[in-house]
């Protein structure tokens, strides 16, 4: 039913090969971690028990992977059918983003063989934010693969599976909207428990709302970012009109977020701290400066229909949103008693490896499965 087509073409492009090489390094460090322990490759310590594997791969990575969430929300809940061509590519990116966040968690947790305890009713702790996040993300990975599976159905002509899928697909889409809403806000609730260890610029009871809003605008920004790159790389034709409509929605969310963010800081009397010139204050300002730059660019209608301006704004927003999440999980976190943390080479290679795998899998899938709709009616008719 979808108009999407597999792109075909050469699989072993230079990009794909480089990604595979990085994945090779990843495998070396992952093996070392499983044989000699997390301490053998990571700078994590008892003061900073969470590093970039959580802060980047899960907390930032899952926000980058919110494209599928926001596009499903737009198309199926808010009934903006005109964005339909963007849904499947966004879902594909989300699917790998979340799946690899899951892989990262598996490397990060120490006692991975006990992970099944999350599913034993008598072990579940419903008071734990971590429990909710783990269940939601675990389920959402599964839901994303099913949401994307119409592409498998079309490719392999799985008629029976397709019929079943058609009957439950709306429930899957609904779950695909509910679950990210829940766990993206809970990623904020999670750090409330850090109490005094988290700088007051980030420790606020509004964290759940701030995390949900960043997930929304980062999801949209990622759709523009990825869409711009894919339409160039795969010669898909011009999608700017769709992106400019998306970016208009983004300005509202971003504006709302910034108002809440600053109002919250002001109400709690932390404005002085924010502008004190301290390291924490400057990180707060930098994080919001990037978002303001994005907002200013997108607030002009001319910029919204200019692919280059759109791309720059998307990058600024992605960086600003990521910095907010990094600040909340690592930079604004200080357990006291002199603990320090900076990610080791091994930790970084694991993260780069996950990103490389994501890119490799994405480029592979768009060539094999029907993901993109090509919008070049004039050229294709010729």
């Amino acid at each position, binding site marked *: 039913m979808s108009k999407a087509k597999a792109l075909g073409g050469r699989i072993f492009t230079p990009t794909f090969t480089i990604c595979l090489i990085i994945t090779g390094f990843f495998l070396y460090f992952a093996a070392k971690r499983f044989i000699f322990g*997390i301490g053998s490759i990571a700078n994590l310590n*008892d003061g900073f028990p969470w590093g970039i594997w959580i802060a980047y791969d899960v907390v930032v990575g899952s926000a980058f992977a919110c494209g599928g969430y926001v596009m499903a929300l737009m198309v199926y809940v808010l009934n903006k059918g005109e964005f339909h061509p963007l849904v499947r590519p966004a879902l594909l990116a989300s699917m790998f983003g979340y799946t690899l966040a899951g892989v990262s968690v598996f490397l990060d947790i120490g*006692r991975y063989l006990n992970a099944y305890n999350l599913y034993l009713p008598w072990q579940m702790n419903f008071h734990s934010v971590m429990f*909710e996040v783990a269940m939601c993300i675990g389920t959402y990975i599964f839901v994303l693969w099913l949401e994307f599976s119409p592409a498998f159905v079309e490719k392999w002509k799985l008629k029976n599976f397709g019929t079943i899928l058609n009957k439950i697909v*709306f429930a899957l889409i609904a779950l695909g909207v509910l679950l990210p809403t829940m766990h993206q806000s809970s990623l904020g609730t999670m750090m409330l428990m850090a109490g005094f260890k988290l700088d007051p610029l980030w420790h606020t009871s509004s964290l759940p709302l701030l995390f949900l809003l960043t997930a929304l605008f980062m999801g949209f920004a990622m759709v523009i970012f990825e869409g711009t790159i894919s339409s160039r790389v795969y010669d898909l034709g011009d999608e700017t009109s769709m992106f400019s409509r998306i970016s208009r929605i983004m300005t509202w969310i971003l504006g709302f977020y910034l108002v809440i963010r600053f109002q919250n800081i002001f109400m709690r009397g932390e404005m002085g701290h924010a502008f004190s010139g301290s390291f924490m204050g400057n990180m707060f300002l930098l994080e919001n400066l990037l978002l303001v730059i994005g907002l200013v660019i997108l607030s002009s209608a001319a910029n919204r229909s200019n692919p280059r301006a759109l791309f720059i704004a998307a990058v600024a927003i992605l960086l600003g949103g990521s910095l907010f999440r990094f600040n909340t999980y690592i930079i604004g976190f200080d357990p006291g008693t002199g603990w320090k943390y900076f990610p080791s080479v091994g930790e970084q290679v694991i993260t780069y490896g996950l990103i490389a795998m994501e890119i490799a899998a994405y480029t592979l899938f768009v060539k094999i499965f029907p993901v993109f709709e090509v919008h070049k009616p004039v050229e294709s008719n010729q």
Partner: protein
Amino acid sequence: MKIKRRDFLKGAAGSLALLSLDVDSSQARTVQALPPDAVGILYDSTLCVGCNACMPACKQANNMQPDFTGDQEVWDNPQDLSSDTLNIIKKYSSGTGEKKDSEVDGYAFIKRQCLHCIDPSCVTACPVSALTKDESTGIVTYNKDACIGCRYCQVACPYNIPKFEWDSPYPEIVKCQLCSHLVEKGGISACCSVCPTGASLFGKVSDLIVETRRRLQMKSGRIYDFPVSSLDSGKFHQYKAAKYVHHVYGKEELGGTQVMYMSAVNYEKFGLPAFPKESFVSMASGIQYAIYKGMVYPLVVLAGLIFMVKKNKKEDEGTHIEKTTDAEGGQS
């Protein structure tokens, strides 16, 4: 149909507003109370002579490995709590460091270990109930068979107590469990049974609180009897009462703890932060509770979403199907 959608959006906006509220956590979640038979330790810094006898006793009772520092591999010499050390005596020193229990030119000892909070963050944080608080003794214990090693307990603990075996391929969380295996058999914590001066004193928390009141009323410089090992051991140590700080650390901090401290030196000097009475955990789980109300809200939202997706997806495909009716008909 349009109206219904607007209603739904209104509801969604309402729940967003709820997210941003400062939730009054006292309503949302009952703050944990001290279990009736709660046991704990009263550590009196003014009685501690820094002999460190409690440290090897702890290692022996819990089968812990020695923690070497520097080149020597002869004796246990930990610098801080670690995955090999559940209990440590640390020293505060200032200036010439000559006068005991004096902030100026003096020194004082502090015992660091798990404080066994009345409302423990680690227990609330743990997704798989690997950390639990005993209903009668109130001891916070760890179950390695449940633990998934996510380390949220380390992030959550305001006292930085749980430690992780970073160099083990299949690591455990390590923390003081108040020698629960000895308490079970009617015994007391190893650190208290070897303490020669009664600086580490085991007992029922309610009785220990009575003892703190007695000590706060003592006239400094006069000789008093101080119970040794446990409140009911019958053994006493006679000693000059110090000039106590009029605050028992742990009695109210973050909802209170079962291990409490008394000292003649301000607690900040030992690196023990001044905490509010309400625990951070009640704030976090209060918000979580208000948003989800026992999963009722999410289910209602899910039902609304299913309804809307079903409707919109049909409309969306309606236009498609018109064009491809023949093909569709052929399939079915």
